């Protein structure tokens, strides 16, 4: 409740901003490149299986000093396949 009205202290902003900047510095991948990677991924996957392009999430995550590319790609019409 208090947190809702509290102005975020600057150390928190510093940490959050750095988390994002470091992930991109370490991978040398800009947000724009990540977006175009996402588009190409959707195109490639769509050739094999039907997906919902709007629901695709792709991002970089940090684990200590290593980075990973995490994609969440919901499939469309799975129930129909199952029924057929």
């Amino acid at each position: 409740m208090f947190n809702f009205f509290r102005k975020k202290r600057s150390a928190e902003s510093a940490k959050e901003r750095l988390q994002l900047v470091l992930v991109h510095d370490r991978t040398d991948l800009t947000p724009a490149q990540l977006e175009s990677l996402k588009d190409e991924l959707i195109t490639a996957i769509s050739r094999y299986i039907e997906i919902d392009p709007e629901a695709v999430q792709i991002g970089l995550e940090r684990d200590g000093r290593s980075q990973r590319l995490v994609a969440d790609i919901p499939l469309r019409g799975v129930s129909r396949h199952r029924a057929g």
Partner: protein
Amino acid sequence: MTAQVITVTSGKGGVGKTTAVANLATALAMDGRKVVCIDGDIGLRNLDVIMGLENRIVYDIVDVIEGRCKLKQAMIRDKHYPDMYLIPAAQTRDKNAVSPSDMIRICNDLRPDTDFVIIDSPAGIERGFRNSIAAADRVLVVTNPEVSAVRDADRVVGILEAEEKGTPSLILNRLNPTLVRNNDMLSAEDVLDLLGIHLIGVVPEDESVIIGSNRGAPVVTDPKSRAGQAFRNIAKRIQGNEVPFMELEQQNILWTAFQRLTGRK
């Protein structure tokens, strides 16, 4: 004796590399170790003034490399600790006067009768930095709890890993415990979490550091200085001793617990 070669670097300038080198070398000399400091910042030398040895320079590292003097002649003995020496940088030359293999050769010549060789790297990630890390057995990265310094430190850590220099240890310099307590400065835990490397020491912000630089007498020689104590602790850890971290962090942990209890955080 086979010296350990330690390079102190940072990415960003002005975070306290040279101060750290002068203080760690002096603390090691106070513990009876034989130490040689090398100023790796060709063209912008400063370790000499921080150590108070600027009036004693005759030869510098480029004179050694270009054969104008013997290595021993370029080693300036400290005024107070006879087992501590400085090899100054050349002031009127540029970084291209030195190569990584020159640094490796000089360090190898020093190894047999020295305990520690400490190299003060220039800021940046270019030639001078590459020269300074070439001979390193161990690298210490200095940073401040500040966005630009942490970002640059992360770049340097990445380069060191890519160069297979191993993961460096971190010196977090100029931490202001009051600002950390008010959540207006990144804490040691925050910086460690961001950089993902091992912490070798946290040095609190301390006016006595500037006073020490003014006098050319590193602050480790002042028994009352908090920063001096922090550098003495780091020197002990470099020698393989386990030394508990200073109270400034414990205070923060207690304060954080108190804030959680009272719902302030």
